[in-house]
Every structure is written in structure tokens, then in C-alpha cells.
């Protein structure tokens, strides 16, 4: 990220900030989409994070830290959107269906469906840590900074989330085995 752009935006230069939005907007939005799994919510979260960033920019001490800083704001915005959404969203549960499982070439697709279902079941905090580490490629420490939690918490959340996702795929594999041997 260009330091000069950040510094100009810190001094109220709207054009500079607009250019910053152009540079980080796609990345922020893609992260928000994956955390929230709802594009409308993701748009709101991204907009909220960027406007928070604009408001708070004069107090950013190190312009070189703009990108991790704005990711941190995004994580908060995602939490806020998820909380807001929970208030008026009923519980949705994916039910297993009885259709025959597709043969091996499609196993990966079946796994992907299981993965998707399991991923949606995770809390927003667990989804966030998975996205930060396995989508953005952050280290545990970087994710901890973004989520404002201790590194140990990030590791334990990641451990829980991966176990949950793995179990979903394992369960599907077991089901397939049982069907093929029946």
C-alpha cells in the first residue's frame, strides 16, 4: 500500500481515500463474503469498515500498517453484521438427503457440499479465523491482531473449526462406505 496515499487520506484527501478503496476494496469484500456468506451483509460490512477507516485515519499512527488495520476494522464490521443478522434470522439446518451418492469422480463435489454446510454452521468468529488463515494466508499472530484476540484463542478456534469441517467430510465418507457395502 502506498504510504503517500494513506498519508494524504489521513489529512482528509477524499480522492486519495477513494484510491485506497480501489486498492483494498476487492480484497476486503472477498473476505467479508466468505466470513458472512451473504453478499448483502458483506457489502454492508465492507462499507462500514471503510467508512470507519476514513473516520479514524487521522489517528492511525503508522501509515504502513493501513492494510492490517483496515482488516481489523473489517473483522469488527463482520461481527456486527453477523450479530445484526442473527436477530432476525431463524435457525436453518441442512437435512441429509437420501439420493444415491455420486461415484468417485464426484466425491470432491460431494465433499465440497459437506464442507459448505459445515462451514455455514460455524460461528462468525470461527469462520473469520478460517478465512484469515486459509484464505488470506495470515499467520496465527497476524490473525490474532486482526481479530484482537490472543494467539492462543486464534489457535484454539482454528483447531475447533478445522475439526468441525473435517468431521463433516469424514461423516459423509463413512455414509458412502456404508452404502456401498450394504
Amino acid at each position, binding site marked *: 500500500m502506498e504510504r503517500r496515499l494513506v498519508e494524504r487520506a489521513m489529512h482528509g484527501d477524499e480522492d486519495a481515500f477513494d484510491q485506497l478503496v480501489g486498492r483494498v476494496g*476487492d480484497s476486503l469484500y472477498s473476505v467479508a463474503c466468505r466470513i458472512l456468506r451473504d453478499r448483502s451483509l458483506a457489502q454492508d460490512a465492507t462499507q462500514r469498515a471503510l467508512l470507519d477507516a476514513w473516520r479514524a485515519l487521522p*489517528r492511525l499512527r503508522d501509515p504502513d500498517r493501513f492494510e492490517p488495520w483496515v482488516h481489523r476494522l473489517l473483522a469488527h464490521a463482520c461481527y456486527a453484521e453477523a450479530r445484526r443478522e442473527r436477530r432476525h434470522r431463524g435457525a436453518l439446518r441442512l437435512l441429509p438427503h437420501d439420493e444415491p451418492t455420486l461415484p468417485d469422480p464426484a466425491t470432491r463435489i460431494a465433499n465440497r457440499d459437506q464442507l459448505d454446510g459445515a462451514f455455514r454452521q460455524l460461528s462468525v468468529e470461527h469462520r473469520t479465523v478460517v478465512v484469515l488463515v*486459509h484464505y488470506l494466508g495470515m499467520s496465527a499472530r497476524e490473525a490474532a491482531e486482526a481479530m484482537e484476540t490472543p494467539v492462543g484463542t486464534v489457535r484454539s478456534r482454528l483447531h475447533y473449526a478445522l475439526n468441525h469441517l473435517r468431521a463433516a467430510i469424514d461423516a459423509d465418507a463413512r455414509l458412502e462406505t456404508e452404502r456401498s457395502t450394504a
Partner: protein
Amino acid sequence: MNGRDDFLDQLEDYLDTVEGSTPLPRSVRNAIRAELPGTRQLGPLRGPMRFLLMATQLPRSSRYGLAAAVVAIALIGGASLLVGSNNPAASPTSTPSASAAPSGLASSAESATVDALITAWNNGDGQVAAALYIAQPTVRFMINSSDISTYPTTADIASAVTTWHGDGAVLKRTGDVLAQGPYLGCTVTWTSSQGTFNGALVVHPQASGLIEAEYLVGATPTVAPGEADGTDVVKALRAAMQTPVVPLALRLGAGTPDLFATNVHAWQWEDDTQGGPMPITSRPDVVNLNLPGGQPATSYAYAVETQGPFVLYSASAGDTGFNVLWLTSDGLIQYSWDIRIKLDSPAASPAGG
């Protein structure tokens, strides 16, 4: 699934492709651009916050120690106010003065292991972070403020332990920490030359960025550790108050630097004019909290910014800060120091009455 690597490959492939292409919609970017002119940027930090920002330029251990001292003094000041301390050094009016800083630096050399919970927060717009923890047996706390990019880590906090033993007064934790997250609450005792007072301490941030410390005398919270959020703790503390406390009004005396409270029912205050500890219930109409007693006149300039249940007064000459003292509708006294407002004329004559 054929193994861990395969699973992670699948997961990362899933994350890469699940949402397809995700450019930020033009409508969002336009909406952001449209809102910028009407969205005011926060100003650079001033007053004590500027002081804290300057502190961030120090080596990390000194930085946190310094900040810890500021908050420590603020907390103790708030507590001493409510237990009726007449000790000028413990008065909250002395809290934000710059002269308090060197003692914080000295304290930062102290080190200890972290044996308790840590809480951290920001003020909603990501500008003020704070961390606080309590280690047995003495309350220890610190704050990291001013910049979201410098949140403290556990290691930072461990290296910046500061314990407050101001003028022989010690605030000790007597029970479990009741909550983590945006609030932290616990039972404490305040011991000073004036005696020992049991109570509870709740520390939490405000949306404005103020750090609030509430000290409740006579409270015995019953919330089980780990089962409550901060709101529950505050409710429990309030419910546990042995004597109902009604809202009171605070004002500065006309022509004097004294602060008066009315409608106080529950607490005992030391009042020299009455020859010793005096139950406030004996004078439910008005009580002189005697905040500035004994302080050099040049150190303080009082000006009432508001009347009624909210008092704001400068804490020292110049723009080194000011104190805010107010009451909630629930009867809690809240004490804090603010960072953004500068009194126009520190030498202004008192306007209260």
C-alpha cells in the same frame, strides 16, 4: 478425505472458489465516496490522549508502565473519592496531571508473571484499546491507548505489570474476576490510613473512549465467574448494594473550589469539619466532598461546564486534562477523565453554585 494435507487443500480450494469472483460492487464504492464529505474525520489526539500517544514512542515496557500509572491513578482517584478520602494525593483531581507520569515509569520496572485474566476492547471506532487484568492479591491494571495498531499482547502486559500502592493505600482483589470482554468486575478492598472498605470494582469503556471505573462500596456480587457478561456483572453489583442509593446531584460551590453532593444516602465519608467519619445519611441534603482540599491553589482551576448530575472540572492548569464526575440513573457514581475537551479558561472563577 485422504489425510490432513488433502483436507486443507480441499478447504483452501473451497474458500478460493466458493464465492466466485468478488469485486467490490461499484454501488458500494460510490456510496462510500458519497458519504465521505459528510463524514467527519476524528481529530488528532490531544490532552492526556496526546500524552499517551507520546508515550507510545517510548520503549514498550516503559510505554505500558507509564500508561498503567495513569489509569492506576485514575482508578484509585475514583475509588478514593467514593470512600471519602481527604488525602489530597488520592483525590481524583490529581489524576490526569502530567506530574504523575514519572512514577509510572518507575513502576514499569516492576515485573511479575501474569496470573489472571486479561480483557481488551476498543471504543467502537477502533481508536482506543485497553487491557486490564487483575493479579492476586493486588489489583493491577494497564491501558494501551491511542492507536489501534498497538494493541498489547499478553507478553506486553506481562512485561508492564504495575501495582498501585499510592501513599499506603492499596486496592486488593478479594474475589474472582467476574467477567471478561468489554467489562471487568471483581470484589475489592480499599485499604488506606482511613481504614478498610469493602466493595466492588467495575472497569469498562464508553463509546466516547472514556475509561470508566465504578467503585461500589458494600456490594457483594453473586454472579458466577465465566457465566456473565459485563452487563450481568453490573446488574449483580447494583442488586447487591446493601443500601439503596438514590441518584444524587453534584455541583461546585459558588466562590469555592469545593464539590458538593446532594441526596447521598449510602456511603460514609470522612469529613474533617464533623470531627471524623460521618454517615452521609445524617446530612442527606448536602455533603462537601472536599475534593480539592489541601491542593495548591495554582494546581487547579475549576469551572463548571454543566450543572445538575454532571460536573466537569479541569484537573490542572493548562490543557493537561480535566475530570468528569457524574451519576447514572441507577445511582452509580462514575468518574473519568476526558481527552478531547479543553476548558477555555483554566483560571476562570467558579461558576457553580
